[in-house]
C-alpha cells in the first residue's frame, strides 16, 4: 500500500500523546493542590479542607490511572513507529525515559498507596508527607521526560559515532539550553491549568448552591493562585520564546509568520499564512511589534522563514494558529483571574453570578492551551526530529503505511471508548461532590490500584 507511513506515524504519535498529556498536566497540578489542602488542614484543622482533599484525591486517582495507561502505549510507540529514531537516539534519550518510568513506579509502589488508601490508617502528618512526596514525584517524572524532549530541541553533550548519538556528558545532555525554560513553562502551565479546573468546579457549586463552604475555598484558592501565576506565566513564556529565538529561530519565525528577516517583524494579530507564495494574506498587524517583543528594539531584526529553504521550514499555519490559541487563552486567564481577585477584594466574588456562570466552563481552557503550546513547540521543530542532526523522515520504522493506518484506527476506536468513559466518570465524581461516605468496603493494606480509590466513599 502506498499510504505515506511518515505522515500516518506522525498523526498516530500526535493523537496518542495529545490524549496522554492531558492527564499528567492535571495530576502534576492536582497533587500539588491536594498537598496544599492537606497542609492547610493540618494547620487549621478545618474539616471542609479535609473533605476537599479527599474529594480531589478520588479524581486524582482516575486521572493518574488514565495517564499511566496512555503512557505505556507511548513507551512502546517509540519502537513500533519510530525504530530508526530509537536506534539513533536511544543511547541518549533512552536512559532519561528510563528514569522517568522508574520515578513513576517508585511513586506508585510507595507513597501513592498511602495517599489513596491511607486516610484512616496512617497518622495525619504521614499522610500529608505522602501527598507532598507524590506531588514532588509527579514533578520529577516531568523533569526527566522534559529533559529528553528538550534534548531533541536543543541537543548537546553527545557525539555522533557511526551515525548514532552517544552520550558524552550527562549533565550537559540533561541541562540542555531549552530544558530549564521548558520545565518552568510546562510545570507552571500544569499548575495554572489545575487552578482553573478548581476555580471552575468552585463556580459550578456556587451557581448550583451546593457545597458552599468548599466552593468558596476552591474559588478563593483558584482565583488567588491564577491571579499571581497567570501573569508570571506570561513572563516565563516570553523568556522561553527568547530562548527559542536563540536556538530555533525558524520556529519563532513561524510563530510570528515572519517571512522576510531583512525587515523588522510586525506583531501579526491575524493573518492567513500563504506558504506557497511566502507571504501573509488578510494580515492585521502592529508594525514593529514582534521586533519590539523579541529584540527589545523596534528596528531589531530576527531571522525570517525565507532564510531557510522551504524543505527546512515547519508547517507555518499550524504553528501560527496554535500559538495564537495558546496566547489568547493565556491572556484570558490573566484578565479573568485578576478581575476575579478584584471582585474578591470588593467582597463580591461569591455573589457576582455573571462572573461565576461563565467561569464554571473554563476548566478546559488550560488543557487546550497546553495542547496548543505543545503543537507549537513540536511542529516548530519540524522537519527535524532532533533539531539540526536528525530529520523526522529518517526516524520512522520500516513498516508499511497500511499497518500504521490500521493501528491508528484501532487507537482512535479504543481511546474514544476508554477516555470518554473516564471523563464521564470524573464528571460523575464532580457532580457527586465532596462528601465523605462511610467506609464499608474491605480495605486492608495498600493495593496498587489508583482507580479503586475513586470508587470508595
Amino acid at each position: 500500500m502506498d499510504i505515506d507511513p511518515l505522515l500516518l506515524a506522525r498523526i498516530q504519535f500526535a493523537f496518542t500523546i495529545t490524549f496522554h498529556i492531558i492527564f499528567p498536566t492535571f495530576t502534576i497540578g492536582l497533587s500539588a493542590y491536594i498537598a496544599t489542602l492537606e497542609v492547610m488542614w493540618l494547620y487549621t484543622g478545618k474539616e471542609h479542607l479535609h473533605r476537599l482533599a479527599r474529594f480531589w484525591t478520588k479524581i486524582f486517582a482516575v486521572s493518574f490511572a488514565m495517564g499511566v495507561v496512555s503512557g505505556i502505549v507511548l513507551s512502546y510507540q517509540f519502537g513500533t513507529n519510530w525504530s530508526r529514531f530509537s536506534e539513533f537516539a536511544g543511547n541518549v534519550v533512552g536512559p532519561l525515559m528510563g528514569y522517568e518510568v522508574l520515578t513513576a513506579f517508585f511513586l506508585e509502589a510507595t507513597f501513592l498507596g498511602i495517599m489513596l488508601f491511607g486516610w484512616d490508617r496512617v497518622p495525619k502528618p504521614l499522610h500529608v508527607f505522602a501527598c507532598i512526596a507524590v506531588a514532588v514525584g509527579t514533578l520529577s517524572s516531568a523533569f526527566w521526560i522534559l529533559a529528553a524532549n528538550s534534548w531533541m530541541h536543543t541537543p548537546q553533550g553527545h557525539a555522533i559515532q557511526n551515525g548514532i548519538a552517544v552520550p558524552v556528558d550527562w549533565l550537559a545532555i540533561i541541562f540542555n539550553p531549552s530544558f530549564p525554560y521548558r520545565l518552568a513553562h510546562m510545570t507552571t502551565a500544569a499548575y495554572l491549568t489545575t487552578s482553573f479546573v478548581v476555580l471552575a468546579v468552585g463556580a459550578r457549586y456556587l451557581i448550583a448552591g451546593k457545597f458552599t463552604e468548599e466552593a468558596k475555598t476552591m474559588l478563593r484558592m483558584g482565583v488567588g493562585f491564577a491571579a499571581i501565576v497567570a501573569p508570571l506565566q506570561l513572563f516565563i513564556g516570553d523568556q522561553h520564546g527568547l530562548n527559542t529565538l536563540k536556538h530555533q529561530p525558524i520556529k519563532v519565525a513561524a510563530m510570528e509568520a515572519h517571512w522576510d528577516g531583512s525587515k523588522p517583524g510586525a506583531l501579526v494579530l491575524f493573518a492567513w499564512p500563504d506558504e506557497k507564495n511566502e507571504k501573509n494574506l488578510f494580515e492585521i498587524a502592529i508594525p514593529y511589534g514582534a521586533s519590539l517583543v523579541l529584540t527589545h528594539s523596534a528596528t531589531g531584526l530576527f531571522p525570517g522563514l525565507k532564510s531557510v529553504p522551504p524543505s527546512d521550514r515547519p508547517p507555518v499555519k499550524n504553528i501560527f494558529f496554535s500559538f495564537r490559541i495558546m496566547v489568547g487563552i493565556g491572556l484570558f486567564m490573566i484578565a479573568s483571574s485578576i478581575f476575579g481577585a478584584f471582585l474578591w477584594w470588593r467582597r463580591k466574588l461569591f455573589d457576582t453570578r455573571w462572573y461565576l456562570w461563565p467561569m464554571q466552563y473554563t476548566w478546559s481552557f488550560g488543557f487546550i492551551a497546553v495542547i496548543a503550546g505543545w503543537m507549537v513547540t513540536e511542529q516548530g521543530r519540524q522537519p527535524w526530529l532532533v533539531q539540526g542532526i536528525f530529520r523526522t523522515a529518517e526516524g520512522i520504522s520500516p513498516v508499511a503505511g497500511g499497518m500504521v493506518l490500521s493501528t491508528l484506527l484501532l487507537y482512535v476506536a479504543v481511546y474514544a471508548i476508554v477516555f470518554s468513559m473516564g471523563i464521564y466518570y470524573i464528571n460523575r465524581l464532580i457532580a457527586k461532590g465532596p462528601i465523605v461516605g462511610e467506609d464499608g468496603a474491605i480495605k486492608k493494606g495498600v493495593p496498587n490500584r489508583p482507580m479503586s480509590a475513586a470508587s470508595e466513599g
Partner: protein
Amino acid sequence: MESYLPLIWALVIGFAVAMYVVLDGFDLGIGILFPFAKQEAERDQMMNTVAPFWDGNETWLVLGGVGLLVAFPVAYAILMPAFYLPVTLMLLGLVLRGVSFEFRWIAKTSKYLWNIAFAGGSMVAGFMQGIIVGGMVSGVKVQGTQYAGGSFDWFTPFNLMCGFAMIAGYTLLGATWLMMKTEGEVAKHARKQAMIALYAVLFFMAVVSLWTPLEHARIAERWFTLPNFLFFWPVPLVTAVLSFLCWHWIRKGNDTMPFLCAIALFFMGYSGLVISNFPYLVPPTLDVWQTAAVPASQIFSLMGMLFMFPILVGYTILNYWVFRGKLKEGEGYH
C-alpha cells in the same frame, strides 16, 4: 567489566519478563476463564481475587519494554517493528482489560460489555504474547540494524500455535490461582478447568519441543550436540516430574501446590527458551553485545534500576502478603 554490562542488563530484563509472565499470567488466565463462569457472582469473585494485584503486575511489562529501549536500543528498534501488529494489539488488549476492572463495577446496564472487554482483552493480550515468543524462536529478519521482514512475517503456523500455547499456559495459571484463592463453586470449577488446561499445556509443550528443533537447525544443534546435551538433559526430565506433580495435586484438590507447580512449569519453559536462544536477543543474528547501548548509557541507567529493583520486589511481596488468604463468595476489595 564493560563486556559484563550487557549480561547484567539481560539478567535484569530477563527477570522482569519472567516476573511479568508469571504474575500477569494468572490475571490474564482469569480473564480467559471469564466466559466459562456460570453466574455474575462467580465472575465478581474471580475478578476480586486479582483486583489488588493486576496493575502492579503490569509494572513488570513496562520495566521489560523500557529496559529493552534503555539497555538494548538496537534490539528494541528491530523487535518492535517486527512484531508491530502483535505488540499494538497486546497493548490495546491490556488497556481494555485494565479499565474493565474499574468500569465493570460502575456500569449498570452495560456490565456485560465490560465482561466482554475483560475476557477479550485478556485473550488478545495472551495470544499476542505467545505469538511474540514464537516469533523470537522463529527468528527475525534483519538487515544491518533494522528489521528487514514484512508486516505479517509473524503470521506463521508455528507462531500461531505458540499463541494458543500461551493461552493454555495462562489458563492453567489462572485456574490454579483460583484453586488457591477461592472457595465454593468457583474453586470447584477451577479444579476441572485446571486439569483441562494442564492437558493442553502438556500437549503444546510436546508439540513445541518436537517442532522447534525440527524446524530450526540452530536450536536442534544447541540442544542435541555434545557436550551441551549433558548439561541440558535434566530440563525435560524436571519438566516431566513437575507435570506429574501438578496433575497429582490438581487431582487431590490441593490448594497451593498446583499453582506453584504451574509457575515452576512456566519457568522450565522459559529456561528452555533461554537455552535455545542465548546469547541472541534478536535471534538468529544479533546477540546482547551487538544490540547493547554504549557502556555510558547502560551504567547511567543501571544505577537507577538497581536502586529501584529491591523496592519493586519488596513492594510486590508486601502486597501479596497483605492480601493473602482465600476470598469467600461475596467478598471483595471494592
